[in-house]
């Protein structure tokens, strides 16, 4: 295996280092410097080279997953085994590289967090400085953000070490643990729940407005919605099914049992709704496949591979 691809081997080599060592930090700093240099180099690249560079990087990035999906994967691979032939060498490499690529995506997602924080600061500091309308709320946002960060980290530090284990019991909490609990559970989670609860009101007003007998299709929609709503109500289900049982004398073979609310709603869900959702999901999935193909091969003009 070429030295260049030894990153994929789960052992110490040029590309990684032991946790906490000076060597690892030096490698991280060199990598960071090279990365920043690459960014500046790309920014100063001539405009006509940008599209080919973007297309090339996009293609290589997507190619890994295409190969992972299509290239024959090793059969019954055990730790420590060596490949039998060239095909297995390639498949071992792709297999080993998968974890590394997963780490890449996780690191990129982590970078997005930093980008998000930068964007928030940029937008809201500007609003405060220029005293835009409602700039006070930008102050509230920034203060909340910093407080949550500080309190969260402080609470995390208190939970490390031997004393941290006792903090599973709220009786042992200190002021900072209470503060973090108040901010996280008392404020953040409660506000999330409140916003989600608004949907209940909106569902009522939307249903009141939308479920009208305006046409045949609307009537069918209304009827099925009512049946499904009733089937969610255990009391109604109990009464309705009890009525049917009374008519059939609890005979399991009677055809009238098909009129039970559970049976009707089950039929609606499995036969009508399930089929429709599967059809929509097929269409959306194929659309995503086609879109992905166009992006991967840079056939998409405009946002992705266009000018």
């Amino acid at each position, binding site marked *: 295996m070429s030295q260049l691809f030894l990153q994929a081997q789960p052992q110490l080599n040029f590309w990684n280092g032991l946790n906490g060592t000076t060597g690892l930090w030096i490698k991280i700093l060199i990598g960071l410097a090279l990365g920043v240099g690459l960014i500046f180099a790309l920014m100063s690249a001539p405009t006509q080279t940008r599209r080919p560079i973007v297309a090339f990087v996009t293609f290589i990035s997507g190619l890994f997953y295409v190969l992972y999906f299509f290239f024959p994967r090793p059969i019954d691979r055990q730790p420590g085994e060596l490949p039998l032939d060239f095909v297995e060498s390639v498949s071992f490499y792709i297999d080993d590289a998968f974890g590394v690529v997963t780490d890449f995506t996780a690191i990129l997602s982590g970078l997005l967090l930093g980008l998000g924080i930068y964007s928030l600061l940029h937008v809201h500091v500007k609003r405060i400085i220029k005293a835009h309308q409602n700039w006070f709320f930008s102050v509230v946002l920034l203060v909340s953000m910093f407080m949550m960060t500080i309190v969260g980290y402080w609470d995390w530090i208190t939970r490390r070490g031997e004393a941290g284990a006792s903090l599973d019991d709220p009786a042992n909490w200190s002021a900072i643990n209470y503060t973090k609990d108040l901010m996280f559970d008392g404020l953040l989670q409660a506000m999330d729940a409140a916003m989600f609860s608004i949907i209940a009101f909106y569902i*009522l007003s939307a249903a009141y407005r939308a479920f009208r007998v305006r046409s045949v299709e609307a009537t069918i929609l209304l009827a099925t919605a009512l049946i499904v709503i009733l089937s969610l*109500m255990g009391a109604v289900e109990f009464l309705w099914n009890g009525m049917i049982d009374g008519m059939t004398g609890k005979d399991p073979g009677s055809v009238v049992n098909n009129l039970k609310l559970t049976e009707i709603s089950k039929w609606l869900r499995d036969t009508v709704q399930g089929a429709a959702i599967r059809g929509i999901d097929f269409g959306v999935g194929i659309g995503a496949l086609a879109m992905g193909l166009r992006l991967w091969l840079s056939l998409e003009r405009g946002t992705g591979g266009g000018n």
Partner: protein
Amino acid sequence: MSLGEKLMSIPKWVLYLILIVVASVPLFIKIPVPNTPLEPAIDLYGTLMNIPEGSTVLIASDWTKSTRGESNGHFDALMKILMRKKIKACIYSSGDPQAPQVARDAIGVLNMERKAKGLPPYQRWNDWITVGYFPNAEACANAIANNVRVAFGGKTDYTPEGTSRDVFQSPVLKDIRKVSDFKLMMVITASKTSNITIERVYGKGVDLAMMVTGVMGPESLPYYSSGQLKGLAVGLKGVYDLEQMLESGITPGMSAKWGTVPGFPGDSNIGNGTRYYPTLHFCLTLLILAVIVGNVGMALSRKKAA
């Protein structure tokens, strides 16, 4: 304005006020509601109760307090079964960065209940561990499906002594080499991580089950119908079904497949489902009435216009 037009155009604030009043009624009046558990929930309960003691279950906890009415009830019901049957749990999240903390807090509440009853707590590290949040759900599910040791490699959790150690040294994960070593993979979610998990993990030798919110129910039911899920609990009804079965188990006649499966009668089985199910009835009744009123108004208006 005629009566029909008035009925057709009730101001939103009136509807919202009525909803607040109606939703508050069950807070003051305790109303027991009869219920028949649905087949997907029965299968879920039966599957959980058949997991051998000492096994490990992988839980994707992708919910936060925004869906606490449903997901908190799902999680509590699941953890009660795991705690009582001494089944170990490995918890990870890929849907929301808040989810790991929310899961830890929920287990903390259940442990306080156990402590109040004089039972040993469900201990972190020995009985359950959390491997944290994974930002990219697709990559995480792929990694778990192909090599769980790589997926959770390098992750640490706290021992009872407070030291941080590799999760694979924990009794929960020490015998786990691949995803099929888990006896079950449970996804508790209000987002698309359910689909992402099924697409990537199904067929890798581990049984899958889900607890989803009511909105995700229709999307998840085709997977249950096709046999890709061993069980499915949907929404608040699913929570109530599970709490009912926690109390009385699966009785003869409920399911031809399971026969009789015991519950935990007399234990602390009441949770969000039992508390909020009557409220759901009241709110849905109001919804139906609002629809009827709107249509009556429309009919009267049309009659007057004609």
